């Protein structure tokens, strides 16, 4: 993939994450902050499909943005074709693992499995 496409994704995910995290924080203000962290309230959030989808979107956006950012930093620290391949594929794998693990949590909480 061309670097410009990767960077477009990088900037896009940043903007998307800022917008959705803002919504996520504003939702905490619909009640007292301490109440919003009560077990039942958190579970209710996961049971509300649009909110669960938003959490999934935040997870994907932040994972993609964060691991690409880390990839860029690591590419600047050291060079070499083997190292760069390792970093590129390693970042992709880490991204996929984090998304899979986070999605599993969202899915299980949404289905009421604890």
């Amino acid at each position, binding site marked *: 993939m061309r*670097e410009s496409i990767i*960077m*477009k994704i990088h900037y896009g995910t940043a903007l998307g994450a800022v917008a959705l995290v803002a919504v996520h924080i504003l939702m905490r203000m619909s009640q007292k902050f301490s109440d919003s962290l009560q077990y039942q309230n958190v579970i209710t959030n996961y049971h509300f499909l649009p909110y669960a989808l938003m959490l999934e979107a935040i997870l994907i956006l932040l994972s993609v943005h964060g691991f690409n950012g880390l990839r*860029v930093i690591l*590419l600047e620290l050291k*060079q070499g074709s083997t190292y760069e391949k390792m970093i590129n594929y390693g970042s992709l794998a880490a991204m996929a693992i984090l998304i899979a693990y986070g999605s599993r949590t969202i899915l299980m909480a949404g289905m009421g499995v604890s």
Partner: protein
Amino acid sequence: MAVVEAPKPSEESNTKTSSQPNTITLRIARSNPSEGQEPSFSEFQIPVQKWTTVLEAILYVKQNFDHSVAVRYSCRQASCGSCGMKINGRPALACYTKVSELNSNVITVEPMNNFPIIRDLAVDFKQLISNHKKMKPFIIREDSEVTPESKEFIQTPQDLEKFLQFSYCIKCGLCNSACPTMATDTSFIGPQGLAQAYRYVADNRDKGKDDRLKIVDDSHGIWRCHFAGSCSQVCPKGVDPAMAIQLLRGYLLGFRK
């Protein structure tokens, strides 16, 4: 060769107002990596006038104290880009920097950062020149061969203004030396190469835009610029490579056509 103390404040003010030559200490970084010589500094006491340039001070050392000091220079008028070095920690052209404007009695000259050192103040420009060539620094178009029917490629002053300042680049390497990305990413094209790519991309006579955009759109290309802006700060010719990089990014992001 001698180590001297900086003149006391009263002496300093006296010398500044008089027309007598001031005396400064010139510290020259010495090293010879090919012979495993560790970096060190040689110090020399140099008489200077208010118009003396750092290059003239170095040449004074070569003429009077130590002819083995390695320094690259040619035109002495900021046109050839040969005498780039770090002067009191800041990349600058030695021929274009007057000792008097440094406001110090101790001048330290070192080879530029981010370049392999050949010896003392002379650095290797191989990578800079190779990156410059990689940008295809010439007008690309099918009909560029001159024929009897050839007509000049007409440009308006507005067309010219888009790239003119970037054509003032003298390839002195100061921008690459000041670039923080180049310090860690040795494969980075660098502000000089990227500014040259923009110079030709913005030229309406050129048809090689797509080729050049492909070259800079690399994992060690244009996207690795952090926009620190130090390249533009140190350019002795008033070129603004940081701006060129941002404008070039506009083409890749689709904001500019």
